[in-house]
């Protein structure tokens, strides 16, 4: 499900921006189902760039186990909840 940009929380917007920039996807293509094995631009190198960009955007440092588990946009939101980032 996608939401109009103006109804998004600040954190949602921030995370979408990170995904758009790192995975080079247009904003309208970012949704919970955007996943590692289904997105052409999301390879292992992009994954690390994505993690670094998320760390930087939300001022956190994810555990390595979470880095490995983060395989979709939806999962990223769920994991970020553990670090006090809510959507």
């Amino acid at each position, binding site marked *: 499900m996608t939401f109009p940009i103006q109804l998004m929380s600040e954190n949602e917007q921030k995370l979408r921006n990170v995904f758009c920039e790192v995975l080079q996807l247009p904003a309208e293509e970012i949704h919970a189902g955007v996943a590692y094995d289904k997105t052409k631009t999301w390879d292992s190198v992009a994954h690390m760039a994505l993690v*670094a960009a998320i*760390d*930087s955007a939300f001022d*956190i*440092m994810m*555990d390595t186990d979470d880095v490995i588990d983060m395989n979709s946009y939806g999962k990223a939101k769920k994991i970020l909840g553990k670090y006090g980032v809510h959507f």
Partner: protein
Amino acid sequence: MLLEDKVIWITGASRGIGRATALQCASHRASLLLSARSLEGLRETASAAVQAGSPIVEVVPMDVSDSGSIKSAFQQVHRTTKRLDVLVNNAGILRDALLGMINDAQIQEVMQTNVYGTIQLMQYAARMMMPRRNGSIVNVASIIGRTGNEGQVVYGASKAAVIGATKSAARELAPHNVRVNAVAPGVIQTDMIANIPLPKMEELRHSIKMGRLGTAEEVARVILFLASDLSVYVTGQVIGVDGGMWL
């Protein structure tokens, strides 16, 4: 000043090569994060680094043999400093034993500190460096990781692993403009070699073409080069600092 405005994290900074590197970097105006297990030694290094010219020195207690400790330290640095320009992976241990006398605990201890610790530190550091598209990681390997030596199967294996990790990380991180290099010191006058028996020490000295042991400062100066922008197009290299030693 080669390191003005750079934030440099040095592990094993309480003595030897780590301490000398801290002072060398401080004299080039780097801001320093200093880690080691010994808080007392760290505080002494920190105080000397301030004297040497470092504008900011922060002590970050960390045990590189403990992944939980590494994670906490990085989370702390990420929150407070928010950036990292250079990581000097210097912490390491030396445990000698001949084949047949090596026990599991010894292998575990050496690998945990010298290899696991180095790899974990590199991967956390890379995450802080990649978004800024700038960074330098300097791993402290050893001549033993390149040539081997009797009685040093475990230590040699661990330092060879550091060299392999350095070269692989360099390839991975080069597209992000993060450089990864290593120094491979020969026999350096530090506490680490204090227990080598005299006859063995003489034998080692004879294998050095310059006829003398190296100093921690001489290694630190090469680390300074790799940390600074003087080496901006150098990555994946292992620089021997051994006075022409042939084992």
